[in-house]
């Protein structure tokens, strides 16, 4: 039945309780008082009373269960009901004085009134008992149910034994034995008051007041309901058993709140320390949550300084970050910016010790720093805790007291814990900043790559005597490859292939510059060697010492098939004539070298007469230096071999074949340099 009642919903519990009380009420109107003349009626009366209040207790239990996290609320409610009980008892005692006989001849109306009174009293008593249950379960880690239920069972047994005693005086010893056990159980259950420790100081003071009042009220109510009093008579008529239980409840209330009073009293001196610890823990938890939610470090810093001030009982707290040289004041609480800055600098610069561990500065040491301060606000104690991430100090959290209570080790630990949180937040903010920065950089790189594509010719020139194929595959980063074609008039075609040393944005910038230089110089119709000399003159001035450019510049006469070209440090040119592949490497230093010797003298020009089906291949080292998983390079030999064996119908096919070979070779490794491949094929038979 108990588990059944526990499981049904609250509305139903109320209805059942209402029915039970209704039955009891009707019964009571008909048979107002118990009497030992009719045993059956007596037993029936007790049965109905016990059942109806038992059912009612479940409704109360449910209500109190929802308040179990607010012990003070439960106690206040219990206190009010105890007060109510006390008032009722007092009023009845005064009104009816000793005139018990009045009840024997009472009419229906007074019966009803008395019954309602009894209802109210019994309900209050049961409610108080259930409130005790709520308190009893509070903050209990072990399951204490068995103790509590044993006590309740003895309450009920005690109630039943009262009836036995009244009916048969010989059963007196049973009642007494049960009574003694019940009192013992009450004592045992009364010492379970651990929940008091978790109350705040203010709540403990409130509890102190309420508990002494409840204790006293319970005591007085108990004494005025002892057998012989008016009240006892009234209740006894209602139900002898319930009267006994009510008495026990009053005893329980008196003892329990007596214990609560003294426990609260003894907890009072440590209450403040307990409060502070609790506050510290809860603010730590709040901060931990904040760190993952708030991306704005300054906002978080405000919270950190505010909580530090509060939790460490300080008058001021401020947070500085250690930048490469200076200290950067991020947030202040309870102190001016200028003063905080001056103090932070004074301490960090003067303190000889490494401030890698938290430090408390005594008043004597402090006076030193503060005398330098234009507006000294003599702090009596100062605590400095470093913000450490991966063993590196990224800043300091300061806390200061102007009262004459120096910081102790506990304070130091707390402030240091806040500093750790601040360090975490700094690191977090930094990482977020970095990822935003990285995203931005990646976007910029995309733009740069797009520009690089636009700098290169969109299509190869069309020519009746010459097939031209050009291919450019950028590496992930932007690079410095460049190729171009120039129409020079007189059926002459200029071409250039160049590679800027290094990679990334800087190489791409140089590449753009190189494009501009070749574009304008090509229009002067100069010899290839002369063009490269002039390019070198210009680049020498603009490039830094470690950057250089390799290039080949050439001119093809599309009428005659005469190819003139010069090389400035660039990879060898491959040419296939009559099935034989040759490497052409005319001397020439890379562009931008200013090594003291004359670039102009180093550079030579080569002239080749192209015949039908002759193929010329220009490329950048992205092809020859592409690596496989064993870090072997593709190399020039492989390229030569492909060219030698090639019988493709078109040079686009040849270009594809080369790229397929390179890709197959380097599969499993990412392309780490731009690849440029330019192929010419002379297709005129004259």
């Amino acid at each position, binding site marked *: 039945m108990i588990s059944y009642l526990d499981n049904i919903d609250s509305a139903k519990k109320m209805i059942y309780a209402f029915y039970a009380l209704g039955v009891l009420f009707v019964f009571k109107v008909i048979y107002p008082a118990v009497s030992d003349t009719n045993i059956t009626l007596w037993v029936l009366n007790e049965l109905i009373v016990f059942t109806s209040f038992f059912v009612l207790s479940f409704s109360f239990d449910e209500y109190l269960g929802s308040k179990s996290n607010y012990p003070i609320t439960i106690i206040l409610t219990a206190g009010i009901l105890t007060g109510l009980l006390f008032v009722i008892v007092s009023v009845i005692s005064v009104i009816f004085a000793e005139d018990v006989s009045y009840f024997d001849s009472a009419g229906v109306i007074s019966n009803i009134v008395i019954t309602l009174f009894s209802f109210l009293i019994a309900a209050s008593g049961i409610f108080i008992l259930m409130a005790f249950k709520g308190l009893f379960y509070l903050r209990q880690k072990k399951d204490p149910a068995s103790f509590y239920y044993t006590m309740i069972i003895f309450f009920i047994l005690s109630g039943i034994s009262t009836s036995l005693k009244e009916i048969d005086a010989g059963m007196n010893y049973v009642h007494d034995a049960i009574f003694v056990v019940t009192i013992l159980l009450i004592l045992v259950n009364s010492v379970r008051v651990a929940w008091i420790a978790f109350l705040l100081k203010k709540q403990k003071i409130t509890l102190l007041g309420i508990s002494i009042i409840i204790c006293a009220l319970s005591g007085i109510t108990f004494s005025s309901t002892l057998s012989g009093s008016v009240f006892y008579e009234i209740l006894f008529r209602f139900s002898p058993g319930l009267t006994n239980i009510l008495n026990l409840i009053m005893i329980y209330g008196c003892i329990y709140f007596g214990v609560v009073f003294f426990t609260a009293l003894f907890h009072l001196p440590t209450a403040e320390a307990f409060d502070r610890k609790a506050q510290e823990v809860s603010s730590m938890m709040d901060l931990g949550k904040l760190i993952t939610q708030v991306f704005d470090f300054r906002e978080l810093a405000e919270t950190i300084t505010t909580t530090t001030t509060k939790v460490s009982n300080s008058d001021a707290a401020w947070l500085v970050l250690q930048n490469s040289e200076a200290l950067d004041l991020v947030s202040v609480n309870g102190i001016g910016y200028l003063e905080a800055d001056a103090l932070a600098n004074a301490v960090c610069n003067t303190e000889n010790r490494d401030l890698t561990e938290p430090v408390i500065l005594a008043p004597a040491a402090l006076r030193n720093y503060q005398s330098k301060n234009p507006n000294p606000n003599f702090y009596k104690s100062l605590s400095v805790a470093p913000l450490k991430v991966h063993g590196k100090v990224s800043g300091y959290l300061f806390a200061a007291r102007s009262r004459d209570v120096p910081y102790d080790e506990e304070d130091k630990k707390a402030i240091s814990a806040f500093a750790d949180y601040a360090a975490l937040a700094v690191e977090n903010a930094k990482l977020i900043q970095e990822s935003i920065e990285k995203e931005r950089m990646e976007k910029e790189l995309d733009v740069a790559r797009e520009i690089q594509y636009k700098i290169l010719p969109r299509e190869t020139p069309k020519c009746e005597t010459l097939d031209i194929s050009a291919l450019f595959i950028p590496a992930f980063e932007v690079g410095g490859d460049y190729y171009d074609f120039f129409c020079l008039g007189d059926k002459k075609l200029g071409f250039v292939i160049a*590679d800027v*040393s*290094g*990679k*990334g944005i800087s190489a791409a910038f140089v590449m753009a510059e190189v494009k501009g230089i070749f574009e304008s110089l090509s229009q002067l119709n100069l010899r290839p060697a002369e063009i490269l000399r002039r390019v070198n003159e210009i680049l020498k001035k603009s490039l*830094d*010492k*470690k*950057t*250089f450019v*390799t290039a080949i510049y050439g001119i093809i006469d599309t009428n005659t098939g005469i190819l003139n070209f010069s090389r400035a*440090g*660039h*990879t*060898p040119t491959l040419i296939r004539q009559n099935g034989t592949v040759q490497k052409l*490497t005319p*001397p*020439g*230093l*890379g562009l931008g*070298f*200013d*090594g*003291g*010797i004359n670039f102009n003298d*180093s550079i030579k020009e080569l002239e080749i007469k192209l015949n039908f089906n002759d193929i010329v291949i220009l490329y950048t*080292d992205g092809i020859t*230096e592409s690596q496989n998983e064993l*870090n072997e*390079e593709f190399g020039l030999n492989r390229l030569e071999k492909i060219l030698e064996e090639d019988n493709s119908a078109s040079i686009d096919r040849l270009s594809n074949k080369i790229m397929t070979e390179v890709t197959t070779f380097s599969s499993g490794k990412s392309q780490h340099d731009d690849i440029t491949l330019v192929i010419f094929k002379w297709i005129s038979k004259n």
Partner: protein
Amino acid sequence: MADFNINVRGVGSVDVIDLHGYLDAHTAPDLENAFNRLINDGKYKVVVNFDHLKYISSAGLGVFMAYVETMRDNKGDIKFSNMKENVYNIFDLLGFPMLYEFFEKEHEAVNKFTD
């Protein structure tokens, strides 16, 4: 990442830099630091031993260009030795033999300074 190692040792009045592994855009700063330290110490006679170098990229080549002038301005030089053929070919293509002295053996390069 490909590994790269630098070891600098004194041989008489000359300093020899031993290069190990892969010298590319990522590892070039290590070599730059080594040169900077030598210059700070007033040591301008340098032989670079390429015996254990497996790979050099264009960024690696640039480092030598960046420092040779300083060395020569201070009556020193950067000389190369023990270069394998594949590495030498890269230097050769760029025209380095016109600017630098290459030696088969380290002691030849060192002796060239002391002669």
